């Protein structure tokens, strides 16, 4: 029956939350299903919406010195910015290798776009200048009374201070050598005068702070116009680069140029003789080599965030694979032999709590020792180091769970094996591993989660291309976008982590029979 098939598929896919919808569609206990839908689908969605609402409400009310805390729309815009960068770089790469009619058409299109954008820019420039003037006028208007007050007060205070000084001087001069009370009074007066001076300074400094904060006033429309203008300028530059890549800098154009020149050289070579012949021969060969080189050249594209996500995934899976290969056999041995377990215990307890930040530099140095020529290495050393750090930090849950799973096999199974006189290997593969599988997979699931968390830190430190490096680079940029980009990363890391977890659940489900480990 389709209904049960669907439900089973959902169950295996770890999407049990959607089961009530199917059941409801078949009108199977509708009231129960409605309740479940409300509890497992509506409530979480509502909670998320409330979270977004709170975020949207609180964020703009807290300004930091690096700008406002981004609201959800701002974060979404930052994500768009990341995508635009990605698409533009890919487009440039494609343009570099475009040839024939396609290239010509693209060039025409780019030129048309360029013309259009020039007009928009002129318009935007005018608007920006106007808004900037408005902002300046607003600032000046607000500043004027404060400046006046500041000037007045500072001259007033200066004069007052002079008067005080003179009075003190006169008083000091008037005191007789043995007049102790008057001397004490003088001390008191000097003290009072200093306190007064401090008060005046504090007053002036407060005024100054006020003035400074007015000077840093940002007129919202002007700020918006500025960012619009910047985006337009960036687009123009992008179009100009595309134009270059579609014309002079295009690979095929360069090859054609080089071929033409080679032909000239060849003709020249064939027609000449004597002392210059050798030089010309060399020049011909060089020309040929240069054509080969250009033909194989690629556009040197910078890493974009999407590439980095993919690479991070590759890195985490490599580390995870290494961890699995180490942890499962060790775990099985630990589970089978109490002696081995006892031997391993101190090592496990010692290394388990070590942080990735400690492992990374050590691994980095060790890996560096193996790789002399990173240029031609199969994998980048920073990538290997990050993966190994992930492996070292994530192997423990698998190891411990495997040992536990193997050690807690039901005695009956083992007795059966004894009766059947199974050998070591068949006992291992027919009985031990299958019955320990659910726990092993539970361990693997935790390991992958740990690995994913560790990876970001490792990449950040090793500057291996990936999400971690993106975070560090964007933080280093310190631009107005930075803050929002960090938030984007939070969501991306979370979503990818969620998917990895789901993936492990699916695997776990497909190996565990009978028992029903928790779904969420």
């Amino acid at each position, binding site marked *: 029956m389709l209904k049960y098939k669907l439900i089973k598929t959902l169950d295996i896919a770890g999407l049990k939350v959607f089961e009530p919808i199917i059941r409801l569609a078949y009108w199977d206990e509708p009231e129960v299903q409605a309740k479940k839908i409300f509890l497992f689908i509506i409530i979480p969605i509502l909670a998320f919406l409330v979270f977004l609402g709170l975020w949207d409400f609180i964020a703009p009310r807290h300004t930091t*010195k*690096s700008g406002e805390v981004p609201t959800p729309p701002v974060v979404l815009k930052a994500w768009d910015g990341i995508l635009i*960068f990605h698409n533009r770089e890919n487009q440039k790469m494609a343009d570099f290798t475009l040839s024939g009619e396609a290239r010509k058409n693209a060039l025409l299109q780019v030129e048309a776009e360029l013309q259009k954008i020039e007009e928009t820019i002129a318009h935007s420039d005018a608007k920006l200048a106007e808004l900037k003037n408005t902002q300046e006028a607003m600032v000046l208007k607000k500043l004027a009374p404060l400046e006046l007050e500041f000037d007045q007060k500072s001259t007033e205070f200066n004069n007052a201070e002079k008067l005080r000084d003179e009075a003190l001087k006169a008083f000091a001069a008037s005191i007789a050598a043995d007049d102790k009370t008057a001397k004490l009074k003088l001390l008191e007066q000097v003290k009072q005068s200093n306190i007064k001076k401090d008060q005046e*300074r504090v007053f002036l*400094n407060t005024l100054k702070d006020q003035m*400074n*904060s007015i*000077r*840093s006033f940002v007129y919202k429309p002007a700020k918006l116009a*500025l960012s619009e203008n*910047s985006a337009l*300028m*960036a687009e123009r*530059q992008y179009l100009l*680069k595309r134009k*270059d890549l579609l014309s*002079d*800098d295009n690979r095929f154009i360069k090859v054609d*140029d*080089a071929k033409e*020149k080679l032909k*000239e*050289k060849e003709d020249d070579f064939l027609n000449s003789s004597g002392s210059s012949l050798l030089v010309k021969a060399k020049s011909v060969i*060089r*020309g040929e*080599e*240069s054509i080969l*080189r*250009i033909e194989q*050249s*690629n*556009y*040197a*594209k*910078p*890493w974009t965030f999407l590439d980095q996500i993919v690479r991070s995934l590759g890195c985490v899976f490599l580390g995870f694979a290494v961890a699995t290969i180490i942890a499962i056999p060790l775990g099985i041995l630990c589970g089978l032999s109490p002696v081995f377990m006892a031997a391993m215990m101190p090592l496990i307890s010692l290394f388990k709590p070590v942080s990735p930040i400690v492992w990374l530099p050590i691994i980095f140095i060790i890996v*560096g020792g193996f*790789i*002399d*020529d*990173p*240029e031609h290495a199969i994998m*980048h*050393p*920073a990538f290997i180091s990050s993966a190994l750090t992930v492996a070292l930090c994530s192997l423990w849950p698998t190891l411990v769970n495997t040992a536990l799973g193997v050690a807690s096999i039901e005695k009956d199974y083992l007795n059966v094996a004894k009766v059947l006189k199974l050998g070591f290997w068949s006992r291992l593969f027919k009985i031990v591993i299958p019955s320990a599988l659910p726990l092993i997979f539970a361990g693997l699931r935790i390991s992958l989660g740990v690995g994913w968390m560790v990876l970001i830190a490792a990449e*950040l*430190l090793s*500057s291996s291309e990936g999400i971690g*490096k993106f975070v*560090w*680079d*964007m*933080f*280093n*940029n*310190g*631009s*107005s*976008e930075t803050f929002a980009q960090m938030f984007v990363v939070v969501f991306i890391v979370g979503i990818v982590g969620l998917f990895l977890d789901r993936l492990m659940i699916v695997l776990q489900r497909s190996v565990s029979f009978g028992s029903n480990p928790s779904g969420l």
Partner: protein
Amino acid sequence: MLKFVSKGTKFLKAASLISIITFSTNTFTHAEQLNVEKDTLKFGFIKLTDCAPIVIAKEKGFFEDEGLQVEVIAQPNWKTLLDNVINGNLDGAHMLSGQPIAATIGIGTKAHIVTPFTMDLNGNGITVANSIWEKMQEVDSKLNTPKPMHPITADSLRPIVKEILESGKKMQMGMVFPVSTHNYEIRYWLAAADIHPGMYTVTDTGGRTNAEVELSVTPPPMMPTVLEAGSISGYCVGEPWNQQAVTKGIGVPVTTNYDIWKNNPEKVFGITSEWAQSNPNTAIAVTKALIRAGKWLDETKDGKLVNREEAIRYLAKPNYVGADYEVIKNSMTGTFVFQKTDVRELPDFNVFFKYHCTYPWYSDGVWFLTQMRRWGQITESQPDSWYHETAKKVYRPDIYLKAAKHLIEEGHLDKSEVPETDGYKMPTSDFIDGIEYDGKKPLEYLKKHKIGNKS
């Protein structure tokens, strides 16, 4: 006025002449590309505006003109950058002038690094926290105006430092790397006002022995954050991180390194000696592209830098410096915001080509060596000859001159733009304390300073 006009037209004529030459020889250029040994390269950089020559050489296609495809990769800090160059992950990088020297003589990681190209002059500033600035203004009332007189020395800082010392603490300041220009500049600035910035010794690699102000390493982009958090009271760093402090309203740049030493060398392009040996033509080709980029960056028309705006748009891209256009713009177009009320024209704040700046001067290398000795990073006293030999090991004008020769032949460079020199600049006393530096006499120079090793 008349003179100026005639000069202007002359310049225009020359410029148009050059462009004609460039145009007519362009076909020739392509045909005679250097036979490079390696054509896909990876260069590292730190997110600072002075990485501009590398970015421009890539974005304006100067590398491509040499048949090179170059990937330009941001590095997290100077140490990682250097390690990546040494172990071959990178072919070359934007480096602090002190780095190739220090690596070659074995301060920190030991490796023979050379430089055929100086990337820029000036470009750093010293910023103090608002609270310190207010105290400096109290000490010296002349600073308490919207536009105080420059240069500002550390004299007004001294009483504050002493006060903190008396309370049993030490003022903390940040710089970016132990062998960075910034370290030597902030030390110079402090020592010129009789504040001891601390000595490096065999056992004290943090350089805090006898310090009255303790300096610590913080990566450039972290500076404003750390200042805001109050862990340090001031720092010396390159742009855009001084302007960032003004924008955020957390600090006040008190001086630029232009005031500490006019037209001081800042960053170099570093490669390993091994790489230069096995890729001689590639090294020349790269240098060619970088020289062209430097020239492009400093191109002027009627005294105005014409290409900087375009350059800033490139630098503002997230895969390069990535800071906001407006922030980078300040210093790169020759204005510097000291306070909201104090915006000054500093046309020479970033020099990428003028004053023969791209040439790898031996005298620059010797100056850095004297500073390393002055502060004890070089632990033993050395004879004059050692300074010259070491500088010659690191600075490679031979590669630069070959590249320049090609560029002159191709019409990209004028003969007058390449210095005829033995590699030593004229003696200069353009320092904040007026002490004269003659690159030929390092030991004599060491003796002139009050604080620090004298031989």
